[in-house]
């Protein structure tokens, strides 16, 4: 019976969230914050896969988000309107905002997840392109490479007129909704948790602990590193797609290195190698940055200060290496008990 607590709880939460948003119990502002939290949870957990579990240091998460965001918005503002409304595939000049009209059709809510999936796959492909050459070498090179990738993706978007150049893309239909974000977050976390608990995930963690020993204990380290990196990029792409359809306007600077840093901050705040930590980190950071909004510029003094204190007094973050028991399958709980002591 206990087995069903988590799914039942999630369904209950989904019904409450959806019902409350429909009934207007949540203000639009609160709904937006809730969606940001959901998107940030996906981004944090996916970055944690590389920076926490794998122990490498990726600083270009926004680059993969950008790929996901651009691919999915290309579908929702260009490809689909082209077939539904007959608008040209490649616009000359700024795109009219009316292209978003197709999204009023209820079918849009079924099509949108597919475009997100395309975005995720696009990001995973870019992840694969990055991972294959960069995991041939060992050590800290990944940080430099991912930093470069972030800039390459950003400048590629800036210089491609079909992607709107540095003006970006406007008229993105508002397709991101509270229940959708919730579902995406749950599915992503579930998939990433299962990956980590599997032998592939154990291989990834073994690479962090001692790459040579892992290799000599039959782990195909290159393979598992590439796999983890692609999965991480895939979910970054999904997060990027959701974010684009929440912001309704994206341009290359949305996905600058600052966005990557924000993801890093959430990972370290929540704690490395922890799904629970990723959830808490995303909630804490998003909540904090909203709550401190009245401080205006001083917000950017207070948040870094909090981070400094965190690093001084609790370096492992809120949940470093530990998990909430209810997130784990029954048979895995014991394995995590030792780490929680």
């Amino acid at each position, binding site marked *: 019976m206990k087995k069903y607590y988590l799914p039942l709880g999630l369904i209950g939460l989904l019904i409450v969230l959806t019902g409350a948003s429909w009934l207007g119990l949540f203000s639009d502002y609160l709904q937006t914050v809730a969606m940001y939290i959901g998107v940030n949870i996906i981004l944090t957990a996916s970055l944690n896969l590389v920076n926490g579990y794998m122990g490498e240091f990726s600083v270009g998460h926004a680059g993969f988000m950008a790929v996901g965001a651009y691919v999915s918005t290309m579908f929702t503002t260009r490809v689909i309107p082209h077939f539904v409304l007959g608008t040209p595939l490649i616009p000359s000049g700024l795109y009219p905002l009316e292209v978003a009209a197709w999204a009023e059709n209820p079918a849009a809510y079924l099509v949108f997840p597919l475009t997100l999936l395309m975005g995720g796959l696009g990001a995973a492909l870019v992840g694969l392109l990055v991972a294959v050459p960069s995991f041939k070498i060992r050590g800290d090179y990944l940080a430099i490479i991912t930093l470069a990738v972030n800039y390459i993706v950003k400048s590629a978007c800036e210089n491609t007129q079909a992607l709107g150049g540095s003006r970006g893309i406007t008229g993105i239909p508002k397709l991101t909704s509270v229940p959708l974000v919730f579902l995406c977050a749950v599915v992503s976390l579930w*998939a990433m948790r*299962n*990956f980590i*608990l*599997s*032998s*592939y*995930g*154990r*291989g990834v*963690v*073994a690479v962090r*602990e*001692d790459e*040579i*020993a*892992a*290799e*000599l*204990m*039959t*782990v*195909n*380290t290159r393979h598992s590193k590439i*796999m983890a990196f692609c999965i991480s990029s895939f979910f970054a792409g999904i997060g990027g797609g959701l974010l684009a359809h929440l912001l309704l306007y994206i341009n290359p600077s949305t996905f600058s290195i600052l966005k990557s840093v924000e993801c890093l901050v959430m990972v370290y705040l929540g704690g490395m190698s922890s799904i629970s930590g990723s959830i808490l980190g995303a909630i804490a950071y998003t909540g904090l940055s909203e709550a401190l909004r009245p401080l205006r510029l001083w917000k950017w003094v207070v948040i870094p200060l909090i981070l400094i204190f965190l690093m001084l007094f609790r370096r492992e973050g809120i949940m470093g*290496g530990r998990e909430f028991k209810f997130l784990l*399958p029954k*048979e895995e709980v*014991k*394995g995590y*008990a*030792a*780490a929680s002591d």
Partner: protein
Amino acid sequence: MPLLRIRDLTHFFGGLKAVDNFEVRIEKGSIVGLIGPNGAGKSTVFNLICGLYKPTTGEIIFNSSNLVGLPPHEVASRGVGRTFQNLRLFNDLTVLNNLKVAQYSQANYSLGDAFFRTKRYLKKEREIEERAYELLETLGISSYAHQLTKNLSYGDQRRVEMVRALALRPSLLLLDEPTAGMSPAEMMTMTELIEEIREKFDLTIFLIEHRMRVVMGICEQVLAIDFGALIGEGTPAEIRNNPKVIKAYLGEEVMM
């Protein structure tokens, strides 16, 4: 047909000849010792067998196939397990998970199985876990299953490293100084353990050791190397009386 046969193995580090025409035949079920002064190239031989280094020349025939050029994880999954001179455990993992990692190549389910936790996945994971517990019980350390390895005592860590190597179902076990840093009492248990696991798991053991008591006690065949080249080979008694080995390594002490 020997289980492991190495021929003409030579390896250079830059201009330094670390291993020079090394040769060995290891019969199935035997315990063979490798001795030599520090820097003689003993660990390099192990690293060459494991695939960590690619030899300049030579061949390493294991179970009638050549291991040269294979990546280390492939060599390991063909049945070569090893331990390290300086422990290389996965310190932040539990003992159980250390043993599960070593069964990576045996978990032949797909990524899809892992995502959806299919029947196949659950069955395989159960097998992996059962094997891990079984091994821990054999060595009498199952009470540590959920401890982080970094919290164990040095002697226990050595034992865990050995069980971890057993978890990958080796037919050849390479032990790099299994009694390094151990007290005489711990050393005795370790030698007993080595003989015990050889019987139980039908193993062939190739070990590097500095303590002559261990080598003389358990090895059936001993190889001595110096500057990467073989300087003596034979039974422990023969090695003990080999003038070249005495000069290079043993000195006068053990003569009595």
